[in-house]
């Protein structure tokens, strides 16, 4: 399940927007300008089922997202969707992985507390006996120059 964000969960001054997410879900997002730096040496790992519902998260995912493991499991992966991310990026992601291919890109993720963190994300389809049963996503520390380029590019894609 995914819920509207609540002001009492947010740290700092925030803006509010309603986002239409993958699968016909709509969510009120509250977001701030507070960045959490990606920690050195860690990978954020998650798996989803074929419809993008989270089935596994590692400790780094929990730490960086600000959600508990229980809040993340069975939630759609779009719980991390930040309003600054252009819908075209996620369309490209779904088009790519639905075709059985690997997707890679730079993503600004939304934390439970309204803050954000940038990642370099790679998503691959999990194929078992020829059938896509889900997806594995691994996020790593991005280069700052690539992030700066995305900060300029993404607003032009709306």
């Amino acid at each position: 399940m995914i819920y509207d964000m609540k002001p009492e969960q947010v740290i700092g001054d925030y803006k509010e927007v309603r986002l239409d997410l993958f699968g016909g879900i709509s969510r009120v997002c509250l977001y701030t300008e507070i960045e959490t730096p990606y920690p050195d040496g860690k990978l954020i790992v998650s798996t989803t089922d074929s419809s993008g519902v989270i089935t596994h998260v590692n400790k780094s995912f929990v730490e960086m997202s600000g959600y508990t493991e229980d809040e993340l499991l069975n939630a759609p992966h779009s719980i991390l969707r930040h309003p600054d991310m252009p819908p075209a990026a996620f369309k490209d992601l779904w088009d790519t992985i639905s075709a059985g291919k690997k997707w890679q890109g730079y993503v600004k993720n939304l934390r439970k507390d309204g803050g954000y963190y940038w990642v370099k994300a790679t998503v691959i389809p999990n194929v078992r006996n020829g059938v896509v049963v889900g997806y594995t996503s691994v996020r790593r520390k991005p280069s700052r120059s690539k992030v700066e380029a995305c900060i300029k590019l993404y607003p032009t894609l709306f």
Partner: protein
Amino acid sequence: MPYTLTVSPDFTPDHLSGWYIFNTWLQKTTGEAIHLEIFNSFQAQHEAIRHDEIDLIFANPFDAAMLVREKGFLPLVMAQGRSDEAVIAVSSDSPIIDVTELLPGCRVAVTEDPDVRLMGMIMLEPADLATENVQTHVCDSYVLVAKQLLRGDADVGIFLAEAYDGLSNIIKKQLKMLVRSQIDVIHHALMVGPRLVDRRDELRNTLLAMNNDEKGQDILKNLRFDAWNSVEDADMEFMIDLMDTLNT
């Protein structure tokens, strides 16, 4: 014809006596003739795998996908609490204190160990470094990676964390660790090949019970861990998927 056991060549020579003792125990326990073949390089080991000469292998995670998908190997067990991690280090004299200060064109000392190299290069990505824009110096061992840094022949080194920890204090004092990975989910696994796959459950149960008696505990101590943990097919598929995502 005896079966053949091998160990990924990324282990330091001082680990090998433990594997010889383990193999003696394994032969006695299973009643099978098993030869321990140690290869000096990944190329030599890959060649033997290609020719179907291997029946049991303590495999590097990088090789796991090939072993499962191309050679019909299945996972048995992994060493308890032992994930593969990498360390990025420079000479203690180096002005670099953060990975992001490294520049394209810098000299990176590595070994042929593919998963450590992969993890290490991922940790260099925040500096916009990739295989294409660094000078890679391939060394035969992690001690030689350290020596390259101490002699000023390389700017940065990628180490297996366990190998870095095992360097002498004299060498470690002359090095500066910039990053240590905390990936947790990438690990070596003991895997069984097609000729022995019918005995997979028996082998796995034997290995899982190894720490129940004093003799088994001693042998495990020589391998530098306390027990084996089971690796199920789904666990292995997850790790293969993970390596696939990283290998880009």
